């Protein structure tokens, strides 16, 4: 408990540093020179920024990260879709538009190259909506001042059976596509719901980060990509687009230091943050689901990896040379590849178009890593037991397997257990990357909440504390599973 308190205090100290400067004035793109400007990695206008050498260009993974970077002073200027940040500005975060971008981009939905049938259906649905005025209603509701908070959101009830229409969204921000109380809303979500209704198929919506959303469609993990996807010639080469439904402007956002400060003091801010993070829109459910997901992936991967580790250990210590070589190649492959890279390769290449759920892919990936580490631990701890122990057992009249299981293994356990525990903990923490393949674990749950509340401190703090508790829990489980002191 003491440790937990120290941990929280040090985390609070870490996040409570900030600074204040002058509001930046922008009149033309030339004024950007010398400033740090941030936008989203992989978005259509990223190139305009990164090609300029006179500015310090930063790229973030999601709109909420971008906003946080702006609020915390990591970047001076954020460049993003006007409409999205308009919604934020309404929430009075002390941000203003310094300058509108000089371009507007036609925005549409993105499909796989060979999926022209689906695109045709979608275009037909969209055209019908434009004709009967539903489209205008949607735009009026979501993209103008009529857009308001929560209660008023409604949507068409979806089918519950049949092949789901898999949607990848790269945006978790009102008013385009965002999550409230476990449900997705927004203008693009409403459009897709119309399509699903037409097809009589249920919807399955998953949040990806910007770069991997495109991969998800390409590799067949998703059917449609949405979240303000601009139509660019480059993308048209590889994907199919529906007819654009709207054009969005980009804008440059800066901190508005002249505006009335919303600061209620640190403690009050934290209190408000806790309320927003946990209780508004029942967000605690996201966290609980994420917690269970992280725990499920970790525990199954640990169990599977431990078993695979036994196999790998026997291969590495086999009399047959080719088996030893296989184990060696496997181990050097695993130790040479970052976990995230292997996870992406498994999801987008190995298991592409197979319909295997991302959870299983994550479990397999982490089990593969765990097996390698576990086999090393098995070897180290078994080698530490002198062969005299086996001989003493044999000489007393134990059989070979009794000597191993009753004498050698209990001793090896004691040596290997701390190492094994460390391995389990690093796996647990390593699972925080599964958000990349659209699994909603704790980290991703925190991301989604951050994208709704635009408050970094409390969700991140919660996520850290939960990981801390999970680590403790894994340690306790291992202690529970380890052999008892009383051997007789």
């Amino acid at each position, binding site marked *: 408990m003491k440790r937990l308190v120290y941990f929280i205090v040090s985390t609070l100290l870490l996040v409570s540093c900030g600074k204040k400067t002058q509001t930046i004035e922008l009149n033309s793109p030339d004024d950007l020179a010398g400033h740090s400007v941030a936008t989203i990695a992989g978005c259509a206008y990223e190139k305009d920024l990164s090609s300029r050498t006179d500015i310090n260009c930063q790229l973030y993974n999601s709109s909420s990260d971008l906003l946080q970077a702006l609020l915390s002073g990591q970047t001076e200027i954020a460049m993003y879709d006007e409409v999205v940040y308009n919604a934020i500005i309404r929430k009075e975060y002390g941000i203003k538009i310094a300058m509108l971008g000089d371009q507007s981009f036609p925005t549409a939905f993105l499909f796989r190259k060979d999926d022209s049938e689906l695109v045709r259906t979608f275009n037909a649905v969209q055209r019908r909506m434009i004709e009967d005025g539903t489209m205008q209603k949607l735009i009026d509701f979501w993209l103008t001042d009529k857009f308001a908070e929560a209660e008023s959101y409604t949507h068409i009830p979806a089918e519950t059976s049949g092949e789901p229409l898999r949607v990848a969204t790269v945006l978790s921000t009102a008013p385009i596509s965002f999550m409230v109380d476990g449900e997705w809303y927004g203008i693009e979500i409403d459009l897709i719901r119309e399509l699903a209704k037409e097809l009589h198929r249920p919807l399955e919506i998953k949040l990806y980060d910007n770069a991997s959303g495109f991969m998800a469609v390409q590799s067949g993990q998703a059917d449609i990509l949405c979240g303000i996807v601009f139509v660019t010639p480059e993308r048209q080469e590889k994907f199919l687009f529906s007819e654009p439904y709207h054009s969005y402007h980009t804008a440059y956002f800066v901190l508005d230091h002249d505006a009335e400060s919303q600061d209620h003091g640190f403690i009050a801010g934290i209190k408000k943050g806790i309320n927003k993070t946990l209780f508004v829109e029942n967000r605690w459910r996201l966290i609980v689901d994420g917690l269970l997901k992280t725990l499920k992936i970790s525990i199954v991967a640990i169990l599977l990896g431990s078993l695979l580790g036994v196999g790998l250990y026997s291969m590495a210590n086999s009399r047959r040379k080719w088996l030893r070589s296989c184990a060696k190649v496997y181990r050097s492959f695993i130790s040479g590849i970052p976990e995230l890279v292997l996870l992406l390769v498994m999801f987008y290449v190995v298991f592409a178009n197979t319909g295997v759920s991302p959870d299983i892919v994550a479990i397999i990936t982490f089990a593969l890593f765990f097996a390698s580490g576990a086999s090393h631990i098995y070897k180290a701890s078994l080698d530490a037991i002198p062969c*005299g122990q086996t001989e*003493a057992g044999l*000489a*007393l009249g*134990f059989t070979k397997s*009794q000597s191993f299981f009753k004498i050698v293994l209990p*001793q090896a356990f004691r040596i290997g257990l701390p190492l094994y525990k460390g391995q389990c903990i690093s796996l647990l923490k390593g699972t925080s990357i599964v958000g990349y393949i659209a699994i909603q674990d704790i980290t991703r749950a925190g991301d989604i909440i951050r994208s709704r509340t635009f408050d970094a401190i409390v969700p991140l703090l919660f996520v850290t504390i939960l990981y801390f508790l999970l680590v403790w829990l894994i340690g306790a489980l291992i202690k529970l599973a380890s052999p008892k002191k009383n*051997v007789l």
Partner: protein
Amino acid sequence: MITVSHLSKIFHNPDGSNVQVLKDVNCEISPGEVISIIGPSGTGKSTLLRALNLLDPPTGGSILFNGENILEKNYPVHKMRQKMGMVFQNFNLFDHLTVLENVIFAPCKIHKENIEKAREEGLALLRKVGMAEKADVYPSNLSGGQKQRVAIARCLAMKPEVILFDEPTSALDPTMVGEVLSVIRQLAKEGMTMLIVTHEMKFARDVSTRIFYMQDGIIYEDGTPQQIFEAPVRSATKAFVQRIRKEVFQIEGKDFDYLDMESRIRQFCIKYNIADRCDMALQATNLMLKDIMAAYIPITVRITFSELSGETFMDFMVEGLETSPLQANNPSMDKLRAFCSEIIEEPTSRGFRIKLRIG
């Protein structure tokens, strides 16, 4: 009880070469016999023991244990081992168990003995080897001699018919050899059948009913201790039992490390169980080197001990010297005569030697 005939053992080295350690071992062991196996290093003494309980299965030949051929296929080897205990050079106690748990582990697991009953019996065994006081201590907190006594108790707990001792004192500090040997002596008195591989000649002579002298992978000579130690038939046996233990020091100049020499002499005395002569040897060395022969550096000093006769000598040799360096009128000579029963002055091919009988 055990009949061994034409037993052979070949070890296959990883580099492909083969070493034949046992060539043709034949023997008959009857209940109640205490057999010491002696011989030079590397002649297969330990291998023979390990072949008997099949820890190193023999390559050829046969072993009958209570009339059963234990080399037969599907013979329940672990059942045989329950009756043929073994005590190892390195004790091989189970480090994760206490002393008492070490003793009762096998009876509880193999014979499914009642724990309380096993505890009582285990404590009785520990009392017998003088280790009852340490019953709840872990092996890592014991000295080597104590570990070996616990290992003996652990072996006895399975109530074996015969016990194989594989150099039980070789890994021990010389000061701890005695405690282990006295436990084995006690077992011999009680009539336990034992095979003991040992380098302790005096012990072997005292405790055994029979001696195997092993050399070249066979039992080279087999007989009572009197036969082997006092009237060996074969010359190799004679050379082995009459061999002389020695330690040599070359004193080149006045910077010689006398303290190191002193401690090595002390170790030598302890190692060959002549600790009672240690002070005499050191006094003699001191008198000779610091006083009587102080002018004759460089000098070679040698301490020798005959395991068979028990005689201990100290030699002081000076090269190129033709007459005795001893002077009768030196007052230190009187001190020397006080504890050296014999002082021999003799010329050698390369110089002159003073030989002192110690004790």
